[in-house]
């Protein structure tokens, strides 16, 4: 549905986006992740025909970006910060956007009332937009982007400025949209992307670092897995037994409030370490009070790939 091939955008001599190639399938929710200034917005601006790419190609539903009017008809776009005409009331703004997208009067009002319900705008329909809170403005922006019922939606940071309840609502909305439509959304909030998206890609300094489902990404992370364990009493014997069985692991005493706490690092995620630890403890009559495995999370992946780990 959305296809980018070697997309580049230069500002002066600096690449904002470099050789970006990806494919969003029909009916998929794709997350575009990256730190601030990574090129997320630039990518979206190119896909929505706002900024011409310096080189490379992209297409929406097999329509190349060069055919910009046709592409724009297929797209619903929510720009960053959801700009809307502050001097108009919500209803007039939506009417304006709908008419500009070529909706006729008959369908326009139907669509507006549907969006009103979907985005929870009923109480503000006749208020001026510059009187609205950030959350409502964001919702007006969402409503405007979906008004002409496009197959493909591009949202640039759809949940900024919303309170936690609204964030959950918008996530539900996007999930529901994702059942029928293709959605590309950008965010620098990991939990959001993890909660909403089928697949995600991480870009940093304009370069695509990785693309896949959250599990795939986490598996790709080179960060070691850790097993935290706490014994009731000193348990050198247990640890020695485990270390004998798995020579690759690294055991470190943890500096916590509790004595006899250890962190066991290992690089093989499939290692039956917890099991071995349990049986060794049973064999040496030691008591395990606490055991907690920790896998590399998306956050680790993100930190590693975007250079924040160094």
């Amino acid at each position: 549905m959305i296809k980018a091939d070697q997309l580049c955008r230069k500002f002066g001599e600096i690449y904002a986006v470099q050789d970006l190639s990806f494919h969003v399938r029909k009916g998929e929710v794709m997350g575009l992740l990256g730190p601030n200034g990574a090129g997320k917005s630039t990518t979206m601006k190119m896909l929505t025909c706002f900024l011409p790419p310096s080189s490379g190609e992209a297409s929406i539903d097999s329509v190349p970006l060069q055919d910009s009017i046709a592409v724009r008809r297929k797209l619903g776009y929510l720009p960053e910060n959801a700009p809307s005409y502050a001097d108009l009331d919500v209803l007039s703004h939506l009417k304006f956007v709908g008419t500009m997208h070529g909706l006729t009067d008959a369908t326009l009002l139907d669509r507006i009332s549907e969006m009103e319900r979907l985005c929870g705008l009923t109480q503000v329909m006749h208020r001026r937009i510059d009187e609205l809170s950030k959350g409502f403005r964001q919702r007006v922006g969402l409503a405007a982007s979906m008004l002409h019922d496009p197959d493909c939606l591009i949202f640039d940071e759809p949940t900024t400025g919303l309170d936690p309840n609204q964030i959950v609502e918008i996530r539900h909305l996007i999930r529901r949209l994702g059942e029928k439509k293709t959605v590309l959304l950008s965010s620098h909030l990991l939990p959001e992307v993890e909660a909403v998206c089928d697949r995600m890609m991480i870009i940093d300094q304009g370069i695509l670092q990785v693309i896949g489902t959250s599990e795939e990404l986490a598996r790709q992370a080179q960060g070691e897995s850790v097993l935290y364990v706490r014994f009731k009493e000193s348990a050198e014997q247990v640890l020695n037994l485990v270390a004998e069985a798995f020579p690759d692991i690294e055991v470190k005493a943890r500096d916590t409030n509790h004595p006899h706490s250890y962190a066991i690092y290992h690089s093989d995620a499939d290692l039956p370490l917890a099991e071995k630890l349990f049986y060794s403890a049973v064999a040496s009559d030691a008591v395990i009070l606490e055991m907690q495995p920790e896998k590399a999370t998306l956050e680790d992946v993100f930190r590693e790939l975007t250079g924040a780990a160094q």
Partner: protein
Amino acid sequence: MNIALTICWKEWRVALDTPLGYVVAVAFLLAAGFFFGSNLFLAGQADMRGYFSIMPLLLMFFIPAMTMRMLSDEQRSGTFELLATMPVRTRDIVAGKFLAVMAQVSALLALTLFYPASLALIGNLDGGQVAAAYLALFLLAACYVSVSLYASALTSHAVVAYVIGFGLLFGLFIIMQAMPTFSPATQDFLAVFTPLAHYHFMLRGVIGLDDIGTLLSVTVLFLTLTWFQLERRRWR
């Protein structure tokens, strides 16, 4: 064309909903009324030439004010991104904005028709001359609107747009004023580019094709420049 009219209608609504439109309208009508009345009672003649020769100066101040936020605000508030990613062509955006200001200016000029109407009631007014003058005024206003619209496309600050627009119009005015100091050959050459000179020709009540042509072509020239300026920032 439908798109242009939609933009025009939206701007018209904004103008009716915000104080700026009313402030400019009231100030313009007050100033126009003052210049109409002051000459009239001094001369004691049913003649509006004095009024019409001062109108370009008024428009020079007021039209940039009515036009300044048309495109600059769109860029500052980010709505230009919204507008530019709609399935519309840049020429429709330019046409819509131009028509919007022209509609407002025309409404103001229509309100000033009260002056010739009242003069015609009490004196013997040359209707043909006034009609030609209004046509000239309308065309000159179109020129000024397109120049101001170009200024508005250059910057994202409304006040800067006003200053640039006023500066450009003032430049045209200065060329007109400086005309007699040039050699006749230069004067002929400059007259081609000076909408104001053609406006003054038309005030005599003669509607020349070259006058209309010049005023229209300056309008089209600046609308094209505006189009270029916007096109630079977006996809075709």
